[in-house]
Each structure stands twice: as structure tokens, then as C-alpha cells.
């Protein structure tokens, strides 16, 4: 059998038990179970004694319900039912008493509104909040959600009421949007183009533009044609009203960006063991490295477990074929209705089991290849696995079960 390089084991428990860990950022492509992983990590940390707040951007009602809350909103809510984890005799690191778990869901419009209200006098704030351009920017700009998630993270960190913040990043098209979007928004808001475009409102003349360059007249002309004068007027009013806040925007984005680089922050890249998700994970790992942001490791979610792994797919299928052709009087065993004898029922059951097993073995092989590709490219990135769950998570027990996967070392 071919031996393959095994990645180092990602010790999630050590990460969450380490009091110096103050922020855990769960990132990865959409649809890989990031939110559930973040909640499970938060719960496990709380039950091991940390005071945790989980910030999610996923409006999944089920997740809220699994934490005993009817819904999540922009304010951290206490999750009931957190209990001390059983003390781990070998490590002596377990908690004597549970910490606490709060959960909240990002409301990006609300968060944006709060920033405006904080930074502008009431009149001006009201003017900004009512601006149609502001409304579209705060609710639908690609990047606002990421920006506001970062803003919220900064707020939670400054509040210092929790000793661990677990953030679940927005379901971006690409995992990298999470890092780029905040800067994109702040660049946009105090960008040169926006300033030039709005300059006429302040200096009151086209002459100013003409001085800048001849091409710019074309630009505004085209923009006016495409967008219409009303939109541009809204933008101008907005920018003028927001003028005092521009510096603030960049400053805040910068603060959070530094926070992500600071010791005490750990990034966990979550991926399903599939090529697409792991390709995204690869990009992200490389990007974190470039940005000098601290990667703790990769969490492989939904890994196929195989209790009967020693029966190969080929043998399983061969045995299924034997059953298939061994029905009474040569009738295929799969035509169950025709054979009510215990032997017939046994064949049907065994046939289903063997085919299922062969399927799962194939899936596991595909998953393993995908994971090996990742590890070949990033041999030093520690990996932890979460087994595929037969059902959706419905309660704290379900989340706890996922968290328990972290206690199991994968290199046994």
C-alpha cells in the first residue's frame, strides 16, 4: 500500500485552552459547514472554561435553535445549557467550571448605521441615513458585509467582555473576499475617483475638472449617461455629508486589519474534503502567509468515516455481485418483494450494506486524494477532521458531538 505524507495534527483543544488565544477566525468557501464548525468550537471552548462570543453572519435559524435561541440578532445573547466539560485526567487542563457562550448574528445595515451615528452629529447622521445611495451601499455593496463583520469584531474586542471571540466569515464567493472587501470599501469611500467625481459639488465648477485631465470629462460624462444624474447627485450629497468620517473609515479598517495580525489571533481554514473547497483553502493559506496572518490549521469537515474500512470497495462489490446472482431460482436478490423468506431478507439487507459500503469507500478515497493534494502543497499546515454527520445539528448535543471530534487525534 502506498504510504502518503500525513499532515501534522491540528490540536484545536490546545488552541482553545490557551488563554492567549483571543480571536479565532473561521474562514473558507461557502457551503463547507463553516458556521457549524465555528459554533462547535465556541461551545467546546466555553465548556472548557472560556468566556466566548460567537459572531456569525449566517442567518440560519436552525443554528440559533440548536443553541436554544429563537433567533440571533446584532446583540450577543447568552446560550443556555453550557456545562463544564469532563475533566481530562491526562492533560490536567480541563475546566473545573464552564465558562460562558454568547452568540450573535451580524446585522450589517445596523452596524453601519451605528458607525454613522457615532461619528456624525445627529443632523448630519440623519441626512446620511436617509440618503438613497447610503441605503444601497449599506445593504448591498459587495464588501459591506465583510467590512461590517470586521467592524463588529473590532467592537467586540474593544469591549473586552469575552476572552475568546470566534468569528464566522461571510459566505463570500471566494474566501479571499473576506480579506479584500474591507479595504475595497474603504478605498472606495475615500478613493480618488469618488473625490474627483464629487469635486464639482464642492468647488463648484467644471474648470477644476478640466485642469485635472481632459479624459476625466469623458469619464463623468459616461457615468452620467450610465447611472443618471440623480444617482450621481445622491453620491455627491452622501460624500459631502460623510466627509468628516472618511479618515475614520480607513482608520477603523486599518485597526481591524492589525488586530487580525496580532498575536492572540488564529485563523482556521474550514474546507470540505473536495477539490474545489480545498483549492480555495490553498489560496487562503497562501494569502495568510503573504499577509503574515497567523494560520492555526485546516479543519476538514464532513469526512466520511468508515467503520468497516478493512473491507475494500472491490471485495464489497464482488460480494454484492454474488448476492445479486444468488436469488432463489436465479432471481436477482434486489427484487425483494418476491422473496419473503429470512434468507431473502438477509440477502436484500446484505446487498444494500455492501453497495453502500463500496460507495462510501470510493467517496473516502476521493476525499483522501483531495486532502493529500492539499497536504502535498502545504505539508506544514496542521489538519483536524470532523466526521460527516448523518443528520443536521439540532441541539447543543449535536454541536458538542462535533466538538468532540477535536479531541480525537487523527494520527493514531
Amino acid at each position, binding site marked *: 500500500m502506498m504510504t502518503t505524507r500525513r499532515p501534522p495534527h491540528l490540536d484545536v483543544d490546545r488552541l482553545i485552552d490557551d488563554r492567549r488565544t483571543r480571536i479565532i477566525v473561521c474562514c473558507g468557501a461557502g457551503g463547507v459547514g463553516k458556521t457549524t464548525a465555528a459554533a462547535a468550537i465556541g461551545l467546546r471552548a466555553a465548556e472548557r472554561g472560556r468566556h466566548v462570543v460567537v459572531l456569525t453572519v449566517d442567518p440560519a435559524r436552525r443554528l440559533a435553535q440548536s443553541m436554544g435561541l429563537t433567533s440571533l440578532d446584532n446583540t450577543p445573547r447568552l446560550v443556555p445549557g453550557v456545562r463544564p466539560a469532563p475533566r481530562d485526567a491526562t492533560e490536567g487542563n480541563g475546566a473545573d467550571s464552564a465558562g460562558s457562550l454568547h452568540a450573535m448574528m451580524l446585522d450589517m445595515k445596523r452596524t453601519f448605521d451605528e458607525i454613522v451615528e457615532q461619528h456624525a452629529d445627529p443632523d448630519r447622521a440623519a441626512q446620511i441615513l436617509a440618503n438613497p445611495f447610503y441605503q444601497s451601499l449599506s445593504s448591498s455593496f459587495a464588501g459591506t458585509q465583510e467590512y461590517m463583520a470586521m467592524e463588529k469584531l473590532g467592537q467586540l474586542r474593544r469591549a473586552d467582555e469575552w476572552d475568546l471571540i470566534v468569528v464566522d466569515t461571510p459566505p463570500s*464567493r471566494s474566501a479571499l473576499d473576506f480579506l479584500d472587501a474591507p479595504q475595497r470599501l474603504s478605498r472606495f469611500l475615500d478613493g480618488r475617483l469618488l473625490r474627483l467625481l464629487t469635486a464639482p459639488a464642492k468647488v463648484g465648477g467644471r474648470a477644476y475638472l478640466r485642469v485635472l485631465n481632459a479624459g476625466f470629462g469623458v469619464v463623468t460624462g459616461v457615468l452620467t*449617461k450610465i*447611472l443618471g444624474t440623480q444617482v450621481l447627485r445622491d453620491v455627491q450629497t452622501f460624500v459631502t455629508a460623510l466627509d468628516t468620517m472618511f479618515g475614520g473609515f480607513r482608520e477603523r479598517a486599518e485597526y481591524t486589519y492589525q488586530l487580525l495580525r496580532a498575536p492572540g489571533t488564529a485563523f482556521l481554514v474550514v474546507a470540505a474534503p473536495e477539490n474545489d473547497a480545498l483549492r480555495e483553502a490553498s489560496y487562503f493559506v497562501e494569502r495568510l502567509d503573504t499577509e503574515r496572518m497567523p494560520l492555526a490549521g485546516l479543519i476538514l469537515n464532513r469526512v466520511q468515516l468508515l467503520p468497516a474500512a478493512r473491507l475494500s470497495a472491490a471485495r464489497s462489490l464482488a460480494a454484492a455481485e454474488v448476492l445479486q446472482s444468488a436469488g432463489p431460482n436465479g432471481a436477482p436478490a434486489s427484487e425483494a418483494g418476491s422473496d419473503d423468506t429470512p434468507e431473502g431478507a438477509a440477502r436484500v439487507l446484505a446487498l444494500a450494506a455492501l453497495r453502500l459500503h463500496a460507495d462510501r469507500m470510493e467517496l473516502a478515497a476521493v476525499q483522501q486524494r483531495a486532502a493529500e493534494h492539499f497536504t502535498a502543497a502545504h505539508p506544514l499546515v496542521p489538519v483536524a477532521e470532523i466526521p460527516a454527520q448523518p443528520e443536521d445539528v439540532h441541539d447543543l448535543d449535536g454541536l458538542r458531538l462535533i466538538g468532540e471530534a477535536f479531541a480525537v487525534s487523527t494520527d493514531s
Partner: protein
Amino acid sequence: MAARDTDWDGVRLHVVTGKGGTGKTTVAGALALALAADGRNVLLMEVEGRQGIAQLFDVPPLPYAERRIGVGLGTQAHEGGDVFALVADPESALTEYLEMFYNLRHAGSALARLGVMDFATTIAPGLRDVLLTGKAAEAVRRKAPGGRPVYDAVVMDAPPTGRIARFLNVSSEVSDLARVGPIRGHADTVQRVISSPQTVVHFVTVLEEMPVQETIDGIAELHTLGGLRAGGIIVNMTRPLALPSDQVQAAAAGNLDEGLLALGLKSAGLNHSPDLTAALAAEVRDQARTVAAQSLQEDRLDAAGLPRYRLPWISGGIGLAGLYRLAAALREQKAA
């Protein structure tokens, strides 16, 4: 040739949406292959710049141009038609649009350098969407010199379920933009195509709670907009357990008859081993729980009252062969 009855006769624009991770792009690809059976020509369009189509068909990254990427599903009567692919991005669509309406051929690239594209599509997200849906509408309406449509069908790998209604709600998106002029006219044309019976929105889901909830919400949201038609629900990656349902329920409840399984394994010629029996029983129990949970989700989907199609889970990764299998499954179920 005699037209074959499908559930979507007369539909020319198939918008395919789904939550991330449900296989939306794969299903869009399979649907394009299925629609291209019987010698029809189909355009498969991607709008999110992920190069998902290129990966799916195993070809190099695709440009903003219509390229032939494959042959439709062959049938007994006919060879498959051609499947073309187009990766549409708002910047290129805007440049093309400026060329078309303002003859600003060079302005386009100059504007792109200045970052104006990003700016324009940023301060007006609706513009972005209308440029992309506009490209699809244009492909649907395009005629060959003889007056026949160039494409018999256009399949769009659209944004995910959570954003689909807003994406397609063209007229209200741009209502705040130019109230007159070419972009307005453009938007109105797009809206006419999208809200005509020629266009349907298919929802791809897997039988898990969140994707199903998003599907139900997405369909409801689509209905509130008016004019937009929900198509079918495509349940992807199904892995049925070949057992009578009472046995599935028993197994899910933890009452799997291991003695019976041992007996069956024995007649399959596997040496008797209690360990193996127990391990296989655990796998069956696990899967039975999944199947039981999935059938609850199927019940929830019933309420949507839309045609439902099931696609099998393809073991060993999709690949082109898998894609054609899915296309055949869609065709058998009259989705195409």
C-alpha cells in the same frame, strides 16, 4: 424531428440557482448538455467569475467570448448539438454595452484602467446585475441570418439562492438609476425577457435542512416579485439506500437486525466476522438516519408544488462521464 415533450417546452432561458455546495454549476452544465440533445445549440453562461464551467468541462479558463466546449447528449435519433460557454463579467459587458450604444470602443478600456467600471458597478450594484442578465437576454433574442434563434436555449449558472431574487429583479434594481435613456431601455428589454414564459428559475438543492430552507425561501421571494417563474427543484447528490422503507426506519431507530445481516454476508461468501458485521451495520444505520432525515426534507419541498428531479450522487468525482450521466438523468425525468 418530432418535438419531444418536456416539462419546459417553450422555455429558452434556464436560470439555475442553488445554495453554495449543492452543485449548482454541475447541474447547470448537465442541464446544458441535456438541452443540447437532438441537435439543439445551447449557451451555458457563468456570471460569477469563478471559472466553474472551465473546471467542470476540464478546459483552460474561458474568456469573455462564446466558445464551443462540448457536444450535447446524443440520442438514438440524433447526435447532440453544440454547447457553447460564456463567462460574463460586468466590466466586459459594460465595455460591450458602451461600444454598442455610444460607439465608445476605446473609451471602454480607458475607463477600465481608471477603475471606473468598478466604481460604476459599485455605486450601483443593480447595474452590475442588469449588465449580466442583459447579456443572457441578448443571447436568447439573438437571431441567425435566416431569422432562427442562434441558441435554442441559454442556461445561466446564476448567483446563489440567497441573492437570486434581487439579481433578477432588474426593473426595481435600476429604477433608481437613469430613468430615461439607453440603460433604462436596456433594462426594460431585459425585464421583458426575464418575466416572460420563456424564462424559468430552477433551484438546486441537497436534502439538508439549510439548503432546503433556502430553496423554500428563494421560491417564495421569487413569487413576491411577480413575473418571475420558478421552474423545477433539482435534488442533487441523492444516495438512496436499497432497502424497504420499514427497514430503513428500523435501522435509523437503531433496530437493525445484525443477525440477518450476518446471514446475508455469509451467503455473499464473506467469512463470518462479528466485527465486520457490526461495522457494516453501523454504516447502514448511519445512512438510514440520513435517508430518514432526507425524507423529512422531501416532505417540506412538497409544499413548493414544483416539479422535482433527482440526480444521483456520482462516486469518484464528477468528471465528464459523470456530467453526461446527470444530463441523461435530467432528460429521462423530462427536465430537458
